[in-house]
């Protein structure tokens, strides 16, 4: 079984400096001192600050703490003379839309009695034709979780431990879709990956040598060729009641595989949404192709998912194609949908032990690896966590209990085309 020995902050592996922001005292002003430390660390990489437009993006599981820390850091940057300071989501699309030259990204989490803030100062090129960015400094600060900070945390909830993410090699598998479910009736969920030509199911096993993926079964996707396919292949896979429904765009039909039997199946199965059809020659679906009302989903979308929430309402999410990437479309119950621009093409909804989340891939910068962004399934869709420095492009996302501990994990298929390898990242 894949067990977590202890939770740890992945960011801590790469951060350059560790600075204690607070001493023994934990009275009022702890958050101010945390902000002071972060700004002190960022300052050398903000030279000629009077000429810079700076963005501040703080993500934390506690929105009020994130908001206050963001304000404190912003006010200090203004005091240093920054030409302008903008608070926001921290992704590249947001930074470009605001014409920023620097972005201070900070992630806050708690471990035991300590609150930890980590992040980076990212410089963005100002050239019209350039999309380059460069990490100028890594930031790290921590403070004791004193009364002031504890007041930010919701009472019944303990601060969740640090997020953990680890990659496991899945081989040279050009994954286009993922899902998790028990496909062989052994009571444990497998990870099922779909490429343009095959399905591969993996078990996650852990023993003395560590966790690894073990291939359980493999099946070819074939049949009559599609009359028209998109220029870049897409696929879907859904595990429902032990049956696997999969469809890849080179083929006219999909397959429904239950046990050892397999039969052709029409359409692309999107779990919780229905069975949809690609628009001819392109890579998106429409509500009509899924047999749902035009008001239920965006006019066109790359993928969609739904989740039955704890309050019995339904959350529906989709990724809408756009000229600068995807837009997350999110509708919670009967509320009007909200949109978050600048996301990647992948999507998953999950109920984790940390709460209900919507997970997207995030194209950090062209030429750099993607990120996975976890947002609260709430009206503001606040960023709870970003998994960065992934070794490639996020090709697919899924959620499910792959280690058998009773709690679902997030799974991301990360493809490095140049190295011709794919890793499945388990995020919890």
């Amino acid at each position, binding site marked *: 079984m894949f067990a977590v020995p202890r939770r740890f902050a992945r960011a801590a592996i790469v951060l350059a400096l560790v600075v204690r922001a607070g001493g023994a005292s934990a009275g009022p002003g702890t958050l101010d001192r945390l902000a002071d430390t972060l700004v002190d660390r960022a300052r050398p990489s903000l030279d000629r600050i009077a000429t810079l437009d700076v963005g501040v993006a703080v993500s934390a599981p506690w929105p009020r703490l994130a908001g206050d820390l963001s304000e404190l850091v912003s006010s200090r940057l203004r005091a240093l003379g920054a030409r302008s300071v903008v608070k926001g989501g921290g992704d590249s699309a947001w930074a470009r839309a605001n014409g920023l030259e620097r972005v201070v990204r900070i992630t806050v989490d708690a471990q035991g009695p300590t609150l930890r803030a980590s992040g980076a100062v990212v410089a963005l090129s100002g050239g019209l*034709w*350039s*999309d380059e960015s460069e990490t100028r400094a890594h930031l790290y600060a921590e403070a004791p979780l004193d009364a002031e900070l504890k007041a930010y945390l919701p009472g019944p909830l303990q601060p969740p431990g640090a997020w953990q993410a680890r990659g496991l090699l899945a081989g040279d598998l050009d994954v286009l879709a993922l899902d998790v479910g028990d496909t062989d009736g052994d009571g444990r969920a497998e990870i099922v990956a779909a490429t343009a030509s095959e399905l591969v199911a993996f078990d996650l096993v852990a023993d003395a040598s560590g966790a690894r993926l073990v291939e359980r079964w493999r099946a070819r996707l074939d049949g009559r*060729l599609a*009359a*028209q*396919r*998109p*220029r*870049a292949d897409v696929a879907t896979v859904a595990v429902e009641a032990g049956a696997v429904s999969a469809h890849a765009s080179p083929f006219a039909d999909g397959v429904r595989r239950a046990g050892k039997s397999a039969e052709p199946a029409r359409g692309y199965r999107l779990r919780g949404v229905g069975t949809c059809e690609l628009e*001819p*020659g*392109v*890579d998106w679906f429409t509500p009509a192709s899924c047999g749902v009302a035009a008001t239920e989903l965006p006019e066109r979308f*790359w993928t969609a998912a739904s989740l039955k929430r704890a309050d019995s309402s339904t959350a529906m999410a989709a990724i809408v*194609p*756009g*000229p*600068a*990437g*995807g837009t997350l479309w999110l509708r919670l119950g009967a509320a009007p949908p909200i949109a978050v621009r600048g*996301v*990647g*093409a992948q999507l998953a909804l999950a109920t984790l032990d940390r709460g209900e989340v919507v997970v997207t*891939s995030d*194209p*950090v*910068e*062209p*030429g*750099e*690896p*993607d990120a996975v962004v976890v947002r609260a399934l709430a009206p503001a869709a606040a960023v709870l966590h970003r998994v960065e420095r992934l070794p*490639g*492009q*996020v090709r697919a996302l899924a959620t499910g209990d792959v280690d058998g501990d009773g709690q679902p994990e997030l799974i991301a298929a990360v493809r*490095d*085309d*140049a*190295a011709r390898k794919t890793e499945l990242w388990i995020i919890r």
Partner: protein
Amino acid sequence: MNARAALALSLASFASLASYAPRAHAETRAAYGGQALGALASSAVDLDPLSLNPGDGEIAALLFDSPFRVDPLGRLRPQLALALDVDRATPLRARLRLRPDVRFHDGTPLRAKDVAASLARALQSPAGWMLAPIRAARAVADDVVEIDLARPAPDLALLLSTPAALVTPGGAHRSIGSGPFRLDAVDNGQVRLSAHAACFAGRPYLDGLTLRAYGSRPEEAGAWDVGALHVARHLGAGVDRAAVEGPMTITEYLAIGRGISDAFVAPFAAAFELGIDRDRLRRLAVRERAVPARSPAPPALGGASGVPVYDPAAATRAFADKVPAEARKVSLVVDKSRLEDRAVADRILADLARVGIEVAIDLADAASYQQRLQSGRYELLLGASAPPAPDGGLAELALVAVADPAIARAALLRAPAAIGAQAAPRVVPLYHRAPRLHHAAELRGLAVDGAGRASWADAHWRR
């Protein structure tokens, strides 16, 4: 028992094409829409699959499809074909089964009779030498073409991926194909294309594309500077721009035409081999990555590498007492729409003057250059040859075909193409270069293949 001829191919040489491999980069899915403007390697003359002109070849790759194609990793893939079967009992007959759902730009379905007619037309044309092992092709069903072969052809699928196998309706000389773009207009030197929404391989991301050749480097650079050009071929070095580069497989050559008497071909060729400093030529006159040519096949396709011998004294000796003085004055035909070639011609002129050959440069427009190239009516001609497929033997035969397609056809009729199997006495390879394209940073998905053709169908804007 049937055996797939495609599987019988030895594709080992493709492995050397590492530079075909796409770069790993993180992007969300490509967006559809938008227009782009690109520079051609040379002016478009005749938008026909059998045209030899590089500019026409670039456009033909966008308009037409062939039964097979070579993917970005150098692997042979079916395109219009579903299968190619050769019966071992009758190895001189192959059956090509076609995809059923392909449509031409005018909406008519692409049938076996179109493929058979296109192959038949290519067989009648000198430019169809790449199909030499094919004796005849006929439609035996809507989706099956039966091919009679002159020899067992394990290379048949590879040959069916070459430009000679591109398909037009009824095999006619028309600019209608099944490819990702359709031709809208050719006016004032510009070729305007629009997306073929019903393309079986997927609608291209761009809505429209305008391609043209520029009269000079400053003109092209000026268009780039004002944003009127998104993909350029002749920008100066030293400026940081996004660029993509193909494998080093385009061979620049000097051809000896019918204007030179047969008796003088060997001394002229020897003078060119020894008297042109090919290493200096590629260093001083070529802006793309290039290596001097030691063999007709580029090293990237298995040809010899290294610097060829430069010995002007030996060149003079080889030439002087064999060619009379009055025959030493020759003209060199250059396509003036190929901007790089003018600088190369100047260097050649200087080198040959040292060995006693007086060269006059004859700048020709693209159309008359093509006419003279195909008719052989020239003394010397500077040209560029792209391999019809990523195969060293075919790359060499392409050079042979420059001077005489019949020799290339005869060689391929005897056996599959192989490096060193056929001499090219009238063609002297100068250097092998890697085509490079500069592109607007927001134009993504662009790659360039070994023939210098941009992958426009995969290009898309990210704003």
